[in-house]
């Protein structure tokens, strides 16, 4: 029998020369080695001591010593040590691996690495003690090597097997679709782009290299084996990623979005031909089509009914694919592998759908109209569009709730401790499925809209009102808290003023203007400043009107918020009786501002004329 003992620090060992295992530590030991008495009775041949707080210090080997134990205590006395040329960290790592292999560490049953471990087999002990590399010399074929590296997520290693990849056409494997697929897949991973690193020297070139190689190699794969769903899907995935990378805010811009969209659709559609039930392909097509709509919107010069219809149709198709992905996923049996493999796409489809339905509503406009017209004592009429928006919002709500449930295995409710949930949520693997901040934010927003819907219906319009309000507030606050938590951990540094913005709206709706003001006072983004301006207006104080004016006027030159600012300014001018400024503003409105602003001002005008 062999022992491996964990001392916190080397100095402790040298001072005490004694190790006592008791209380909960002894319990962990007993859990891992329930038959410890029998084992220890066989005698101890050797003992290693490592220091868990001093990973880089050498481990020790105890030469002589004695051991006492009873049912609640184990005591070891060391007489003599020898330093080994293996570090404590190495011993710890090997020991833990060994424990998992042997099954005496077991996360599921909550059995952890005890401070004292018993190793029965001399070979095992030697492997740990000498930190021997296991199975050192290996000769494997490319497939086996690729597979092994893939298991370790060593994408670079996989690519390196065939460097220089530029010459891969000249190699024999150029005719082997299985191997090419492995390399192409690895290149795709190597090409994955993180916008945070955009500015690093050579980063973009490096990514481009792998990207281009990936496409070349995977195309060849599809050529060799055109009926292989995985190959086609992988190529589709690369183009899909390209689209996302090129369209994400602050992403890379070294590519042609339009072309990538077409290629992504082409290859993912081919994947669907080979496997019509491909959840991944449906999801990706849905997402890309959605991007195509955005792209199309930007390119439109002349808006017309045809254009609107075209967009409507594209959106309809996109939603169709996402809904199909959801439907297919829900048909999979509980324990099938596909359930796990496609979970990410499922969750994201649900999220995309929730987002789509949420944004399809014009609640944001209604909020503006509601408050501004109220201020101007105008009539707010939304009956005609209510039904449509209500349907969309209900769909959004259903999708987002389902999304939450599927991700966290529990139905969302305001009593959940979201920060705790977030800190448990595996930041690396699960976060990639979906950002918990986005999720909470979207839930908050949807419930906020629902709440608003009830508010405009009039007081006590429904029993749901309180519930919606409570949820909206809780989720948005939770989103903010989690964002702060991640920021403090350095995980997410994204600007989260968009959350404050909607939290401010929540306070507006609940009539808590002070909190609303506090929430967004320092905001830099135009649209948040606009919300801030509304808060200021609602105070109905002259000094606040002036402040709002000062904030809004510069925004007239801001491309993104100029229309909103114009509308708000128009209201302020009216409220504060600055007729001249008002006329100047509305005379320019036709050239400078969008449809929304024009319509809105027209409404204000007509209200004015009524009186």
């Amino acid at each position: 029998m062999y022992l491996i003992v964990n001392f916190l620090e080397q100095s402790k060992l040298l001072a005490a020369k004694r190790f006592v295992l008791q209380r909960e530590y002894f319990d962990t030991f007993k859990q891992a080695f329930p038959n410890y008495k029998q084992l220890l009775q066989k005698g101890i041949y050797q003992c290693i001591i490592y220091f868990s707080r001093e990973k880089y210090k050498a481990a020790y080997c105890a030469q002589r010593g004695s051991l006492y134990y009873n049912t609640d205590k184990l005591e070891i006395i060391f007489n003599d040590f020898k330093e080994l040329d293996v570090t404590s960290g190495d011993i710890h790592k090997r020991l833990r691996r060994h424990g998992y292999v042997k099954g005496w560490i077991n996360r599921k049953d909550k059995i952890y690495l005890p401070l004292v471990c018993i190793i029965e087999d001399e070979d095992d002990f030697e492997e740990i003690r000498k930190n021997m590399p296991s199975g050192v010399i290996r000769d494997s074929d490319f497939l086996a090597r690729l597979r092994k590296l893939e298991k370790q997520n060593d994408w670079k290693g996989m690519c390196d097997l065939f460097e220089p990849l530029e010459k891969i056409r000249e190699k024999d494997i150029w005719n082997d679709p299985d191997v090419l697929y492995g390399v192409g897949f690895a290149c795709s991973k190597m090409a994955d782009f993180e916008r945070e690193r955009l500015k690093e020297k050579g980063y973009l070139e490096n990514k481009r290299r792998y990207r281009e190689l990936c496409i070349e190699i995977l195309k060849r794969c599809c050529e060799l084996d055109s009926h292989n769903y995985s190959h086609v899907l992988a190529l589709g995935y690369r183009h899909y990623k390209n689209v996302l990378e090129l369209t994400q805010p602050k992403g890379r811009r070294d590519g042609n979005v339009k072309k990538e969209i077409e290629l992504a659709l082409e290859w993912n559609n081919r994947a669907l031909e080979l496997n019509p039930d491909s959840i991944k392909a449906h999801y990706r097509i849905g997402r890309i089509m959605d991007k195509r709509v955005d792209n199309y919107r930007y390119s439109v010069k002349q808006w017309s009914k045809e254009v609107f219809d075209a967009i409507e149709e594209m959106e309809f198709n996109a939603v169709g694919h996402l809904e199909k992905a959801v439907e297919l996923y829900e048909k999979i049996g509980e324990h099938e592998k596909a359930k796990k493999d496609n979970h990410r796409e499922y969750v994201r489809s649900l999220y995309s759908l929730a987002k789509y339905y949420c944004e399809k509503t014009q609640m944001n406009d209604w909020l503006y109209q509601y408050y501004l017209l109220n201020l101007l004592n105008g009539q707010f009429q939304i009956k005609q569009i209510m039904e449509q928006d209500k349907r969309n919002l209900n769909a959004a709500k259903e999708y987002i709730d389902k999304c939450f449930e599927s991700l966290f295995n529990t139905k969302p409710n305001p009593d959940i401790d979201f920060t705790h949930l977030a800190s448990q949520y595996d930041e690396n693997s699960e976060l990639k499925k979906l950002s918990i901040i986005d999720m909470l934010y979207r839930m908050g927003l949807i419930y906020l809209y629902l709440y608003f819907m009830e508010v405009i219906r009039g007081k006590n319009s429904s029993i749901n009102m309180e519930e919606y309000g409570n949820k909206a507030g809780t989720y948005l606050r939770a989103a903010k808290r989690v964002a702060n938590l991640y920021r403090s951990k350095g995980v997410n540094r994204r600007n989260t003023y968009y959350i404050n913005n909607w939290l401010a709206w929540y306070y507006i709706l609940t009539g808590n203007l002070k909190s609303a003001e506090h929430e967004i006072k320092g905001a830099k983004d135009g649209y948040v400043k606009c919300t801030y301006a509304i808060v200021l207006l609602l105070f109905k104080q002259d000094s606040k009107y002036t402040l709002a004016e000062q904030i809004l006027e510069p925004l007239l030159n801001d491309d993104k918020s100029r229309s909103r600012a114009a509308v708000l300014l128009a209201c302020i001018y009216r409220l504060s009786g600055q007729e001249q400024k008002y006329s100047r503003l509305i005379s320019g409105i036709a050239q400078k501002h969008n449809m929304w602003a024009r319509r809105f001002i027209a409404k204000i005008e007509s209200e004015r004329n009524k009186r």
Partner: protein
Amino acid sequence: MRVDRLDETLIFESQDKELFLSCFQEPRKLPEYIEKEILKLVFDSLKLDINGNDDVTLLIKRLPTPFINKVIFDVESMFSDEMSLYSDGVHESAALYLGRHLSYLMYYLPVNVFKVWKPLVDLQVKDKLKWKMRILDIGTGPGSVAVGIMEYYRMMAEAFPYLNFVLSFVLLDGQREFLTIAKRLINSLTAYMPPNLFVSIEESICRTLDSPEDISVSGEFDLITMSNFLTINEMRNSQNAVAIVSALKDSLKKDGSVIIIENGIKNNCLSFKTIRNDLVNQGVYNVYSPCNGIWQPKKEYSCTCFNMVRCFWEIPLIYKFLRDHGLKKGGRYDVPFNYAILRKDGKTKYRAEGNNRFYVQLKDLREYIDRTVNVKAIIRTVIDRGDKISVSLCDGSMDLGIDDDSSAVWIEPVDKEWLVKKGLNLPIVAAEKITLKKVKVIAHGTFVVIPRLRMQGSTEIEIEY
């Protein structure tokens, strides 16, 4: 590479991999200085003067023709059946080698030098070699094994100049002539060793081992080697073998190894395996390698299958010269042999695997005809057919007799080039562990169905050395 502070073994680190890969990748080449020292020894024994500056090709040309013809005759007749009839008890080996020591030195020493590398690598990959080794070589002959071990350690000493290596040999042979040659050769070769490798001959014992009592050597050894000693060519030895090798146990350190090397001839293989089986089944030793059980540790051996390992080498200059002068033997670039490493501490090169959930044992293969399976096994033997090779497997789950080669599990012949294209760079050698994923099981044979394995495009192969 580093030395363990507790047991002084050499610990192989992953960056050392390349060095050992080269042991498999390239054929071994007998350094010219060895050939030169062999020739110098020959000239000396023939009492002929030489110019010390001459290189091997020049030296070899100076050998007198009658001597060359004698060497060729000796080599071709030495172990032929006819000569083996000389048996007269203790003196049989004396008779066998009478007047032929120089021929043995010139021809059999070179071919036997590198065989010992295979067992040495087996030990090394599991950190069983020490920086300092005390070795007992039984049946030294002209010193082939010692020279082989020296060469192996020279390679290490050159690769790891920051480490020191020490080899000390105790040589034992029944024939003084051989011991004289061995001592002289080893001593002359020490001049070529790097400064961090110290080689010495501790003792040379001229004694004929006829019974276990004859083994009385002082101290314990890290390594006891016997190369072409138990062979049936050495007549009585194979009868005494079990007793003699058993008796050696007391001279072996508790973490020491016995290396037995034999030639690749079928009859010899049978006797060698029988001896091995007896030694293990009587509980004297365990087999460290080859022939480990893949799924369970193998405690009993009843298998006597006919197989062999190969050592790839470049034909040395002396051989080329002899062949130019009419020698028919010695054209093989792959030398077949058999070996076993025995230990008394129960350690094995490959440890039995716990998890066989995704694999099929070879004994069960016939239930999987036409299906694609995963298999793990030791490569039993490899047959080279020019462009193609056939490989036979053993996982310890079936016992074969010496003539059961055809009922063993074979992989259908594959193109060597195909393997290279797949990315397998090293020649496939017997005794290594192979993992095959997605191989197809094919029915073979007319009366009895014998399963064979067929490699497919999607087959994954991995060989562990």
